[in-house]
C-alpha cells in the first residue's frame, strides 16, 4: 500500500473515534474536532515515522489531548465548555441515564474525565492509560477510583440541580 493511501486509511478509520473521545473529555465538539484535525495534520507531515509506531492512533490522541488541554487552560473557558457538555441540544434523544452520565462527567475535573474516557470509553487498560498520559500506573488507578466516586456522588443528586436541558 502506498504511504499516502496508508495515511488516508488510518485517518478515515480513526478520526470519528478520536473526536468522540475528545468531545466527551473537553465538553466541546468544535474544540475536539480542531484538536484532532491539528493532530492529524501534524501526523501527516511525519507519517513516515508515525506509521512505524506500535499504535499511531495513540500518538495522534496524545497530541490532540495536549492541544485540547492547553487550549482549555489558555482560554480559561473550561467552565463554559463543561456547561456545553451538559447541553446536548443537537443530539438525538438520549436515555436519562446517558444524560446523567454526560452531566456528571461535565462536573468532574479534566484529569478525572481523561482517565474515565480512556479506560471506559476507549477501552484502554490501566497500563495503556498510564502510558498515554505519561503517568504512573498507581496514579491512574487512584484517579479512576476517585473519579468513579465523584461521579457516583453527582449521579445520586437530584436531577434538577445537574443543569442540563431536558426537552
Amino acid at each position, binding site marked *: 500500500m502506498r504511504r499516502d493511501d496508508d495515511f488516508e486509511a488510518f485517518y478515515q478509520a480513526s478520526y470519528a473515534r478520536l*473526536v468522540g473521545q475528545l468531545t466527551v473529555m473537553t465538553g466541546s465538539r468544535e474544540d475536539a474536532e480542531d484538536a484532532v484535525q491539528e493532530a492529524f495534520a501534524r501526523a501527516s*507531515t511525519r507519517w513516515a515515522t508515525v506509521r512505524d509506531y506500535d499504535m499511531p492512533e495513540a500518538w495522534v490522541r496524545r497530541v490532540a489531548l495536549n492541544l485540547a488541554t492547553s487550549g482549555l487552560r489558555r482560554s480559561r473557558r473550561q467552565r463554559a465548555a463543561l456547561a456545553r457538555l451538559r447541553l446536548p441540544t443537537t443530539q438525538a434523544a438520549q436515555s436519562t441515564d446517558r444524560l446523567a452520565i454526560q452531566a456528571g462527567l461535565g462536573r468532574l475535573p479534566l484529569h478525572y474525565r481523561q482517565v474515565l474516557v480512556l479506560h471506559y470509553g476507549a477501552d484502554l487498560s490501566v497500563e495503556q492509560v498510564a502510558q498515554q498520559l505519561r503517568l504512573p500506573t498507581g496514579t491512574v488507578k487512584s484517579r479512576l477510583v476517585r473519579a468513579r466516586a465523584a461521579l457516583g456522588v453527582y449521579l445520586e443528586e437530584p436531577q434538577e440541580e445537574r443543569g442540563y436541558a431536558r426537552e
Partner: protein
Amino acid sequence: MHENELRRQVAELVADHSEQAVPPPVAAIRRRGRLRRARQASGVILLIVAVAAGLVVVQQPLGRQLTPAPVVTQPPRPIQPPRPAQPRPALSFADEVQDMLGTTLVDMTVVVLERGKVSDDVWQLAAVRGTGRNSHKPKECLARSLATLGRPFGFECLGEGTNRPLARMTLGGGIHKTPLFGLAPQGTARVLLRGPKGTTPIEVPAKTIGPGFQRRYYLAPWKEGIRTAVALDGQGHEIAHYP
C-alpha cells in the same frame, strides 16, 4: 453504579459523539500540515536572516577600522552597504484561504468579510466563490481562522454540487466564544438563531457579501447553545433553515 454499567454508558456516550463526527477531506488535513510546516520553516529562516543581519551591522564598523589605507592610485570604490535579504512576505488571510480551498475549488474569488478579537483570540471570516474541482459547479463558502490556535481553518460550502441539497444555509463558528456566522439565501433580510427551549433567540441582519455572490451572510455574537438558524425575508417569512 456498577463498573460494567459505567463502562457501557461511557462507551455509548463516546460512540454517540463519534457518529456525529464527519472527517474533512484528507487533502485538507495534509494541506494544513504542510502550511504549518511551511510557517515553521519560514520562522526559522527569518530568525537566521535577522541574526545574520545583526552580525553584519555589528561587524561593519570594526571592518572599516581594520581596513588598511589603500596604496593603489585608483580611488577606493565606495563601500556598498550590505543588502539585507528580503524576508518572504507573510501570506495574507485571503491567500491562506485560497491556499486552503485549493483542493476543493478553482477560479476562486475571496472576500475578507470580518475580523475581530475575543479575549486573546483574533478571528477572521472570509467568503469564497469558486467552481468545484470535481463537480464543475459554482460553490460559495465561508472560511474562518483563529490565530491563537495556530491558524486552523474551517470552511463550509454550499452549491449546486453540495451533498446536502436541502441545507440552504449554514451555521458555524463559536469556537472559543468567537461569533457565529453562516450563509443564507439571497432574499434573506434577517436571521433568527435559536437555542434550547426557554432561551431568548438572537435576530441579526443578513449582509451582502459582494458582487458575483449569490448568497448573503450573517454574523452574530456567540451565545451558548445556539444550534438552529432560520432565514427570514423582508416580510418575516421563513425561506431557509439550518439544519
